[in-house]
């Protein structure tokens, strides 16, 4: 029997409990590869029939790989709107892919660290994600997976130009290396724009929470490479890794500075975030994300005894519109969601004690 997506997905609780290096600042590391099949038009140009053929070729090939031993595999046309949105809220598929219907599909592995989108902008978009800063490990893993897949699928490849992609901006390696960063310290210190500009100058991209053209909700930023041709994958990974480590250092300094120079402002932000989440009756996902972000900051600075980072990360996911509806088991209008969201937060924040400033360091 075919498994339903919501039975397959790991719980938000489990999702929140995942850990990785530097995870107080780096939420996740991701590498995606764009690949196409030789002799077939790219999805944007292909007719329904050839898209279907690609889907029927790619899905079984991907499913047969050892990393996909336990998997969810489906056609986008068979998924409900709320299921697609859940995948998007978990960053497993892009917004563009969520909008796809007939001829497009996904294959997802057991622990949600490996996902293949079929017929997004390219025939295959293979991506691997892990919590914390693990770009090199993620690259090694996806490289291996891609090599296994290439033995089964004839990729479109040119000696000179490398892997051929629908958009010339992905040409060559077809790689996008990105890290999702939580930067409330830099935002509160008003330094984040400087950092964004510096990163842009290096030829990298900084984006909001849900990728291209989205806002930096919850003080979350995505850093990724822009150029894909003329360098090896390892060089690109190394460069992004370096940039991320530098930003991590700046963020850590910004957090320390807040505590030393503007402690009252910091306690006020975190304390108010707790107050609102613990007592509000109507709350939008945007407001909730920004408040949870401040609480997450408080936790990382040991200001919130009794509140765990894992439960915060779980809430980050649970307050998203589709996850909220899944928890309730019914479709909710936006106004209803704001009520249910506030209810969930009140329940989870009940009994959480207020901000407890760390003890003054003694001069002795």
């Amino acid at each position, binding site marked *: 029997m075919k498994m339903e997506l919501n039975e397959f997905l790991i719980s938000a609780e489990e999702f929140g409990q995942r850990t990785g290096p530097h995870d107080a600042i780096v939420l996740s590391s991701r590498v995606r590869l764009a690949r196409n099949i030789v002799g077939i038009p*790219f999805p*944007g140009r292909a007719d329904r029939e050839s898209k279907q053929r690609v889907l029927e070729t790619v899905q079984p090939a991907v499913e047969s790989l050892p990393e996909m031993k336990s998997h969810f595999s489906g056609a986008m046309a068979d998924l409900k709107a709320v299921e697609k949105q859940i995948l998007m809220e978990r960053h497993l598929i892009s917004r563009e892919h969520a909008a796809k219907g007939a001829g497009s599909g996904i294959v997802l592995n057991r622990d949600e660290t490996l996902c293949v989108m079929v017929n997004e902008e390219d025939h295959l978009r293979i991506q691997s994600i892990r919590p914390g800063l693990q770009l090199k490990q993620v690259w090694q893993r996806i490289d291996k997976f891609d090599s296994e897949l290439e033995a089964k699928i004839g990729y479109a490849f040119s000696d000179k130009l490398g892997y051929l992609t629908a958009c*010339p901006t992905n040409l060559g390696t077809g790689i996008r290396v990105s890290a999702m960063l939580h930067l409330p310290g830099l935002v509160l210190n008003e330094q984040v724009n400087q950092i964004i500009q510096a990163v842009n100058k290096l030829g990298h991209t900084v984006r909001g929470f849900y990728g291209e053209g989205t806002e930096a909700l919850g003080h979350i930023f995505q850093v990724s490479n822009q150029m894909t041709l003329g*360098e090896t994958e390892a060089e690109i990974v190394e460069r992004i890794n370096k940039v991320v480590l530098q930003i991590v250092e700046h963020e850590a300094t910004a957090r320390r500075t807040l505590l030393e120079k503007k402690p009252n402002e910091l306690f006020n932000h975190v304390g108010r975030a707790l107050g609102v989440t613990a007592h509000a009756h109507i709350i939008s996902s945007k407001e909730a994300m920004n408040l949870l972000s401040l609480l997450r900051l408080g936790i990382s600075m040991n200001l919130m005894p009794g509140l765990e980072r894992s439960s915060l990360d779980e809430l980050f996911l649970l307050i998203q519109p589709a996850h909220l509806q899944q928890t309730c088991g019914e479709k909710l209008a936006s106004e209803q969601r704001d009520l249910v969201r506030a209810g969930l937060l009140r329940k989870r924040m009940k009994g959480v004690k207020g901000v407890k400033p760390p003890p003054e360091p003694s001069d002795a």
Partner: protein
Amino acid sequence: MKCSQCESPATVHLTEIIDGKTKKIDLCESCAKEKGVTDPSGFALADLLLGLGASSEIESSGEGKQLVCGACGFTQADFKKSGRLGCPECYSTFADPLEAMLKQMHKDTLHRGKVPAHLKEQRERGMKRADLQMQLEESIKAENYELAAQIRDQLKQFAVSTASRPKE
């Protein structure tokens, strides 16, 4: 909302629908003017996706005649409009207009990354051969005929071993 080209606030919001795909772009007054967005008919997404001047690059090449991909029927106009290509073969069809664009967009125009395993050997042989060919030309230019003869022998060997390789 900020302009997608510079940091100024965006005042022009453009939506273009290509093959049922919606693309939204936000621009400030001056960038909009610069790109001719005030006249939507003269505006190409290629410029935004692929960098300034990309659409005129696409248009000016091909010596006046319209390039069409023999494999998928994609035209120069399609490319200009969508900023994307139709199929892998398009990269040969549009090689000329792409060349300058890729130079601007990427670190280099030659792929240095991963190569599928079954092409690796073939590719390495090709590169070695090209290398020998270059050495040969250089040695002839330098009138080093002894070296040239040696390289020519190596190249001959190369041709023989390639020919005797069983076809896959």
